[in-house]
């Protein structure tokens, strides 16, 4: 083919310019509402991210892609769990795709970066997907960022008290991932555990990217009642695999993402070490609440079995609830996003949202207060693993039951926070 290169370049230039220029600033009467979905589709959480996209679609399908009298369109922006990619993609959504607001992001560090980006776009709204970073709505929060899901610290709450009071496990050693989510999720567990009088004998932080845990496993003390494992994804699978090979040992208490669908659906036998593990998190698969049961049924009906998880994942549920909140907010203001979305923001702040996980309301930092479930992993039919709910704690707030001053005085999650002794433990 003899392409005339000049024509080609000219064409490319014209397309490029029209992309940049052809976005009309003046909106016509009731144009569709555009929602940007910022989600990790690459990297460690790719499978969870894909489930998130499915769930946004599901929530919109249920309202026939209409809210507040206006049609809803979505634009998906893929990120790779890197904060800079998240901000870049968010900026593309706002500036190029001209979305009205964003649902996302998925991971912790992305959440913190998006919080700061949100401050530069006060006229747009961001509804968190499933980022679990405490800092997103606690440290210098942005007025236009809303989180209808619990944060990583809240997810850990309830479990500590349960293992001390119901199982009598008082001495534990901990092994958790050495980054912000690992600290945050552990903090939620430890605050509760220490206040109930438990003792943390040894804390061990494993760096991300370390995959051979033989030495760490050997180092765990013998005289403990259980070991807390706060890892996720591949790291969790690796640890469990080697834990089994070393002859397993004591009982396991799991961090929230230790037994998420991404781990439970991993291929191979490593996950079997999890049977009997107690974990806590924002959802319980066998939650008898009709709202949850309906949601799971709708999820299963909406997608063929090979294109979804057996039941909605943590990530998927988070995005589903965020979309629900967006729809409820739009309905409350009749699709009116004028005035820098002030009315929409006010409506979101005062929502009492009925979600599959129970009713959720926001506090003054626009952070949800909600229910945490304590689950036990058990063998299900056909060699699968399921989690069975054993307890739940309603109304877990952002400060984990402490006063804001106490919570602030404790400091942000880190390798050494919280100090167990200061909270009444050992």
């Amino acid at each position, binding site marked *: 083919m003899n392409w005339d290169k000049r024509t080609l370049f000219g064409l490319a230039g014209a397309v490029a310019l029209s992309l940049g220029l052809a976005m009309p600033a003046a909106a016509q009467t009731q144009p569709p509402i555009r929602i940007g979905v910022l989600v990790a589709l690459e990297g460690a959480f790719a499978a969870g991210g894909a489930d998130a996209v499915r769930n946004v679609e599901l929530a919109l399908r249920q309202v026939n892609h209409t809210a507040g009298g206006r049609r809803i369109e979505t634009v998906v922006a893929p990120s790779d769990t890197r904060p800079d990619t998240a901000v870049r993609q968010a900026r593309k959504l706002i500036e190029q795709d001209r979305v009205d607001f964003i649902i996302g992001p998925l991971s912790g560090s992305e959440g913190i970066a998006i919080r700061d980006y949100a401050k530069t776009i006060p006229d747009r709204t961001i509804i968190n997907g499933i980022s679990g970073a405490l800092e997103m709505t606690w440290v210098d929060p942005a007025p236009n960022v809303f989180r209808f899901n619990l944060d990583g610290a809240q997810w850990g709450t309830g479990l500590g008290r349960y293992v001390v009071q119901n199982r009598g496990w008082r001495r534990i050693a901990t092994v958790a991932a050495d980054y912000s989510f690992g600290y945050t999720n552990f903090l939620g567990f430890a605050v509760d555990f220490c206040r109930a009088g438990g003792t943390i004998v040894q804390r061990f932080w494993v760096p991300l990217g*370390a995959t051979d845990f033989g*030495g760490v496993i050997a180092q765990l003390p013998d005289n403990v009642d259980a070991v807390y494992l706060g890892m996720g994804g*591949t790291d969790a699978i690796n640890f469990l695999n080697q834990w089994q090979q070393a002859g397993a040992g004591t009982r396991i208490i799991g961090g929230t993402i230790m037994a998420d669908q991404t781990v439970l659906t991993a291929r191979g036998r490593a996950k079997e070490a999890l049977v009997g593990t107690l974990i806590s998190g924002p959802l319980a698969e066998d939650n008898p609440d009709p709202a949850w049961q309906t949601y799971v049924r709708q999820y299963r009906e909406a997608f063929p079995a090979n294109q979804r998880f057996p039941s909605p994942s943590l990530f998927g549920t988070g995005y589903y609830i965020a979309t629900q909140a967006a729809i409820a907010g739009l309905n409350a203001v009749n699709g009116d996003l004028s005035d820098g979305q002030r009315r929409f923001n006010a409506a979101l702040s005062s929502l009492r949202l009925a979600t599959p996980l129970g009713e959720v309301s926001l506090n003054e930092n626009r952070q949800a207060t909600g229910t945490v479930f304590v689950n036990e992993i058990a063998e299900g039919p056909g060699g699968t693993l399921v989690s069975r709910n054993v307890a739940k704690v309603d109304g877990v707030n952002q400060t984990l039951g402490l006063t804001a001053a106490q919570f602030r005085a404790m400091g942000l999650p880190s390798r050494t926070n919280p100090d167990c002794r200061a909270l009444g433990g050992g």
Partner: protein
Amino acid sequence: MTDVARRYPVWTLIVLLLAAGLLWLILTPWTPGIEQVLGRKRVFVNALFGGLTLGALYFLVASGFTLIFGLMRNVNLAHGSLYLLGGYLGYGVSNAAGEWLVAVPVVFLLVGLLGLLLQHQVFRRMEGEELRQTMVTIGLSVVLADMMLWIWGGQSYTLQTPDWLSGPATLPIVVGVDRNGAPVYMRFPQVRIAILVTAVVIGLGMWLVLNRTRLGMLVRAGVDDREMLTASGIRIQYVFLAVFGFGAGLAGVAGVVGGTFQSLAPGEDTRFLLASLVVVIVGGMGSITGAALGALIIGLVEQIGLVYAPTYSVVFTFLIMALVLAFRPQGLIGNRR
């Protein structure tokens, strides 16, 4: 061996003393004095053995890498992708056949074939253009990574350990005494012992082939002086094909092994590529013995570092590499080119 001892008497002595010291540490019951410095004996010995077995895995991956580089000057940055592909294929094969052992030869053949294809169709066309070959391997690794993500998705896979290898074995090493004064013996995962044995067998096999056969002679000659070998009428393309196919197949087998005692997921390709790079830089490019030594050092440093200084353990391996580069750029065992 005696040659080395004669040439470097001081180093040989130091190495022998170190080895003897370690052996003594492993065999003797620990006094409280030692425990104060090194912690409990169980931890130390486990870290040591864990490092050995991790080194064995690194050796399996890196030996193909170093051979390919030594002979063809091709830095195959898609080597990690071959590792991961081998693991995924091994998962499929062992599940279909119901037997872990079947996966090893099948994966070796499949990934080896892919290697042959790459060498024959891609790298042969750009022989001598080292940088371009490297670029192509970078491109290949990006493409392969995304295709594997497409096919196998983002979740983790672990190959099922055969029953006769699952669980720990008790080794005749006393690591402590229990409350009643009875000795506590060390328990160590059987699968790791098997990996160590496999790596040693493969390493010895490669050494024998390289040093005792005609093919090995050609390969060694090619590593030392490729132009001379070509000039002497050898059809070097066949040697290249053999080495690339073998190296790729070995990476695939390493994937099966790695998928058994660790796990397979997107991103593991980069991790093992980096590990191979560090191992061969420390050991010396193009040398099998160097790869073995490098793998041993890196495996040990990673495990002992993770136990005694977890925060920066992932950095140590790179520091060692920088040290080697600063004082012996050709690697611990390697000829200056």
